[in-house]
């Protein structure tokens, strides 16, 4: 019985056939992609704090709020010498300058990362392979080359389809926004939890999925644009979005002779001084040295535009450190500005700690929506007398093993210095298969208990590896967060175990 007959609505009635069709589409997409979507969502949620994770991973690296142009120039000179000594020939070298997001001076290239102190003197390694593992697990599933990046981009489109289809299958989306029928059985309670979290988080889910999709589809667009718009020239197609390096190099040479090296590197010092003078509101976040070590070496400084969503504006400098121009991410074509805004809106990197916490909560919600979708299907099967307990057990194992193994892989990698990716990708199917043998009832407490234990191994490994440094501010915050997360999960396991005991005792009493 409802009050619907007395409630007039201005909206046209949605045909039930359309709703059922969209529900079918949503179910087909959701059940097929649940596992990989959950993996991408949960790793993305964790990766919101990628900057904090990097600082936690390398607690010995010095931290500072700013570095002078001379200090940065000295760091670049030292890095150049180090790279020459090791025989590495990186195409691009990135200098991370201190900022609120990353208060460190680092030089990062494909083979290594170097840390420097506030004066620009070498301060040991800045390598952060665990952070790379975590972020690459999210945006390319640790697949080689660009395959993974494009695949995850396509999965982003499929997630958009799931979100839009799910919304279309809920014509009463707003009127039922506060409805939670938690006392109406296993399936209906899960339907309501799934729908309510999905609807309330809808703007976030849609924007995050779409922005991820756009970043991943960019490579496909370049591949299509090359033959259609640029006569088959892939480099021209890339240049349309990212700038033409050959043109930039020619422009840079017009300022005079090639880069003069020294300590500190005069070009770096001059460029940063020029930026501070001409763009005082835009502090540098990174320097990019493209075509590194060649006569055409290009210097671009990525500077913050704090009031915008763009990641940075790129300011190009000539061989004498004079400002040539910008890449146009802040004030160029609308398309370029839009594309440059995708990362911050996707990663929640636009409003400090508060926004990151909001993103983690909403990201956990999206991950939960992935899990409850499968739960609904399993509950419906059980109602029809077709209990798929093996699938239930496998799914429960998979859901808990994913975050647990991310932590355990990192812990093992930290202790014995092996790559974490193989541990994760071998461990995940193994844990899922082992779970099938345990049974769904037992897994209700065993799976979260195991996940909690895996998660707590990470701060323990960190303390073992780094000793007192584990208590430094950024590292301690991450360790405390990991301990609290593990404690919450273990508490859930204990609760599930006790409710199992209570149910068994009630059954025994009824039988007697």
């Amino acid at each position, binding site marked *: 019985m409802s009050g619907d007959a007395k409630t007039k609505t201005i909206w046209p009635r949605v045909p039930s056939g359309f709703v059922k069709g969209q529900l079918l589409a949503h179910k087909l997409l959701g059940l097929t992609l649940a596992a990989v979507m959950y993996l991408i969502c949960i790793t993305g949620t964790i990766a919101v704090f990628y900057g904090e994770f990097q600082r936690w991973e390398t607690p010995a690296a010095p931290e500072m709020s700013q570095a002078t142009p001379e200090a940065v120039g000295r760091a670049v000179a030292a890095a150049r010498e180090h790279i020459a000594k090791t025989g590495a020939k990186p195409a691009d070298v990135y200098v991370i300058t201190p900022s609120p997001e990353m208060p460190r001076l680092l030089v990062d290239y494909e083979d290594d990362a170097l840390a420097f102190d506030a004066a620009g003197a070498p301060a040991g390694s800045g390598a952060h392979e665990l952070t790379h593992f975590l972020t690459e697990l999210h945006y390319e599933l640790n697949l080689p080359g660009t395959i993974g990046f494009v695949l995850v981009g396509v999965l982003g489109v499929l997630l958009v389809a799931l979100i839009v289809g799910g919304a279309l299958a809920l014509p009463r989306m707003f009127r039922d926004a506060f409805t939670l029928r938690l006392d109406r059985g296993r399936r209906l309670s899960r339907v309501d939890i799934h*729908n309510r979290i999905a609807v309330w988080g809808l703007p976030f889910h849609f924007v995050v999925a779409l922005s991820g999709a756009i970043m991943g589809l960019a490579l496909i667009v370049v591949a299509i644009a090359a033959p259609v718009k640029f006569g088959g020239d892939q480099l021209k197609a890339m240049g349309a979005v990212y700038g033409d390096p050959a043109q930039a190099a020619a422009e840079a040479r017009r300022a005079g002779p090639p880069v003069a090296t020294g300590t500190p590197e005069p070009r770096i010092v001059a460029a940063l001084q020029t930026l501070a003078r001409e763009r005082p509101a835009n502090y540098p976040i990174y320097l990019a040295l493209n075509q590194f070590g060649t006569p055409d070496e290009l210097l671009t400084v990525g500077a913050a535009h704090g009031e915008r969503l763009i990641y940075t504006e790129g300011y190009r400098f000539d061989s004498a450190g004079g400002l040539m121009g910008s890449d146009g991410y802040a004030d160029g074509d609308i398309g370029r500005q839009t594309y440059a805004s995708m990362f911050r809106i996707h990663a929640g990197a636009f409003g400090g700690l508060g926004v990151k916490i909001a993103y983690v909560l909403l990201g956990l919600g999206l991950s939960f929506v992935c899990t409850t979708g499968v739960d609904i299907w399993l509950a419906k099967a059980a109602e029809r007398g077709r209990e798929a307990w093996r699938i239930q057990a496998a799914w429960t194992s998979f859901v808990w093993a994913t975050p647990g193994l991310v932590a355990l892989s990192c812990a093992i990698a930290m202790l014995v210095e092996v790559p974490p990716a193989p541990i994760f990708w071998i461990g995940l199917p193994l844990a899922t298969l082992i779970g099938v043998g345990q049974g769904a009832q037992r897994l209700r407490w065993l799976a979260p208990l195991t996940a909690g234990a895996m998660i707590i191994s990470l701060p323990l490994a960190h303390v073992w590896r780094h000793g007192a440094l584990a208590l430094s501010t950024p590292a301690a915050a991450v360790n405390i967060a990991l301990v609290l997360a593990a404690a919450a999960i273990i508490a859930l396991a204990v609760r599930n175990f006790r409710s199992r005991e209570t149910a068994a005792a009630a059954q025994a009493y009824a039988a007697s």
Partner: protein
Amino acid sequence: MLLQVLGVIIQAAGLVLLHRHWRVRGGLGGGALFGAWALIILGAAPWLGGVSPERALALGALAPMLIGLAMLAPDAYGRLSGAQARSARPRRPARADSGEAAAALSGTGGARWFCALVAAPAISVAAAAAWLAYSPLSAVDSMVTSAFLMAAIMTAALLRLLATARPWPEALITCGAALLLAVLAALGAH
């Protein structure tokens, strides 16, 4: 910061009003509904101070989502602690949401998936190519809009082909359209 906090409080007030409207039999009337949404939108205005409109929109949209979820939490907590849910039944119960897809449609899942996996990417790529070939916008604007177009068309095609009762004919039509667009793109290529 004070203004932003005030904005969040205003948005919360709007959500409380929405909650009342949708829980009471017959609702509170169109005026209350309009007022609730107006409060939610206006509460985001303080975020405009000192940041660009797109950043303000991103910041202003977060609070309503979290507040709405928080308003559901008491019912959820009741379930977790084993206690009776705080409000067992809404005054305006939801339509029996059985989650049932049309039975007649569900038997052809494999066919739908095959059609969707072939036809949806085909038409989205072809449409993007055709757009790139004829777009009057600058090169970078054309490329970025084509990415959004690709995502939109793939989404629409997937939802259509997975939901239809006739997956094979519709997939054939979609592939035909993709071929036509690809030919157009090839003719317009430069």
